[in-house]
């Protein structure tokens, strides 16, 4: 079957709700195990784009391919989507939220817990397995949500503004953490965000979308040298120049 990290490619994807054009002729490719950031003004249809890739819906025009999969059901089987809200089920403990994908596949709860438990350690959530979601901080909830997505063990990770609801300090922590996870365990990732810095920090490539109807304004490859800390990266002249470029592309799109 497909190796870990199938590629994703979109070709001529367009969509409209009633008379409102949302997406027009969107095309991009993500190579296996690479990450792509999609930035664009809010309300330009970024989330819709992700739900197309995930196979939750099909666009009115164009094709979406995930690995070899073209039809929505097969895409759904290949993609894991982490939504904007953490959407933890309040009636399940942290660990039982993380095991959802396994339980959905018929793994008995006890065995599913045993398989997921070691990950809590790795995600700095050790000791919180039996807590209820409302007892966790925002950052922890987000990590449980991410854990739940990873446990689904799909080829492609789709992240919809994964840290949008967090305060800026927690958000920076989470970005560093995600960068670590993706470096250790690379996966094909498509990440939607309106935070340019986040996209540049976490992705190999960045696609800039215009306001509705969204078209691809530019595709930028982020070839920044590997640096140690976040502070160094953000202060790097190359990084700042790239950020300025993306921001100007975004405002150009608004016109």
């Amino acid at each position, binding site marked *: 079957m497909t190796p870990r990290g199938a590629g994703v490619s979109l070709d001529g994807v367009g969509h409209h709700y009633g008379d409102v054009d949302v997406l027009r002729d969107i095309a991009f490719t993500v190579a296996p195990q690479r990450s792509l950031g999609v930035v664009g003004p809010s309300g330009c249809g970024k989330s819709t784009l992700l739900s197309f890739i995930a196979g939750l819906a099909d666009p009115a025009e164009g094709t979406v391919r995930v690995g070899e999969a073209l039809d929505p059901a097969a895409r759904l089987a290949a993609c894991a989507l982490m939504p904007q809200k953490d*959407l933890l089920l309040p*009636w399940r403990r942290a660990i039982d939220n993380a095991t*959802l994908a396994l339980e959905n596949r018929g793994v008995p709860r006890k065995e599913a817990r045993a398989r997921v438990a070691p990950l809590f350690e790795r995600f700095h959530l050790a000791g919180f397995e039996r807590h209820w979601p*409302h007892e966790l*901080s925002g950052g922890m909830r987000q990590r449980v949500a991410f854990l739940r997505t990873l446990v689904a063990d799909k080829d492609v990770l789709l992240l919809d503004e994964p840290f949008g609801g967090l305060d800026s*300090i927690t958000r920076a*922590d989470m970005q560093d953490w995600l960068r670590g996870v993706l470096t250790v365990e690379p996966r094909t990732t498509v990440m939607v965000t309106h935070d340019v810095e986040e996209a540049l920090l976490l992705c190999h490539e960045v696609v800039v979308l215009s306001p509705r109807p969204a078209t691809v304004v530019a595709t930028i490859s982020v070839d920044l040298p590997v640096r140690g800390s976040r502070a160094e990266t953000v202060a790097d002249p190359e990084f700042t120049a790239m950020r300025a470029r993306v921001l100007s592309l975004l405002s150009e799109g608004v016109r």
Partner: protein
Amino acid sequence: MTRSAVTARPVVRARDKRPSAFARWGPAIGLAIALVALWELVVALADIPAYLFPAPSAIVRAAVDDRALLADASLVTATEVVLGLLIAVAVALVIAVALHFSPLLSKTVFPLLIASQTVPVVVLAPILAIAFGYGIVPKLVIVALICFFPVVVNALDGLRSVDPDLPRLMRTLDASRWAIFTRVEFPWALPRLFSGVRVAATYAPIGAVFGEWSGSTDGLGFVMLQATPQLRTALVFAAIVVLTVQSVALFLIVRVLETTTRRGNRR
């Protein structure tokens, strides 16, 4: 990972400060005692005959004198109430789930459900007594008929109010339609389901007594029916008191069930 995130402790919510039992129940109990005292006083001063309006002391005396009769009768009525309510909840759940899964059923059956609620039980009860006799069956039918409706409506509303992002999320986690129902929709609807059951629980005793009025050989309704023409009004009141205590107990039991099923659920 930075230190701040590693050392983050769970947010410990301060338990809501519970008022003491006295602060909570004191005013209600005080008012009840005052009213009973006033009642006793008025009956004694105005010299109202006991067959018209018995004093609380007379009711207590009647209850003690006829305790065996009341105990047997209340057991019969309680059985009708609890069984009828259970049947109602079971039927309501089946209907609500069927309507939830099938838009066609929901369009065709829902109007019929509403129609079923306009059938006057007053008229229906004697017919049921003729059809099923004086046993427990017509009472169960009446109790279930009164009780299932609030449960269906609330359960259905609960199932329909699910955050649409949750089923989407579940689909990306390989959930079947049934898994979405059992792991998301049903738990989501549970609080609403219980508000339906609570309403139903308050209707159930009325239904049972009504069923007994229309034809029975036992039960609190039967006791009232027998005592009234004998002018044993104090016994009628005693039966009413027993029924009230039963209803409150049933309501509290439903409440306890609800809190146990919702342990962690702070939605």
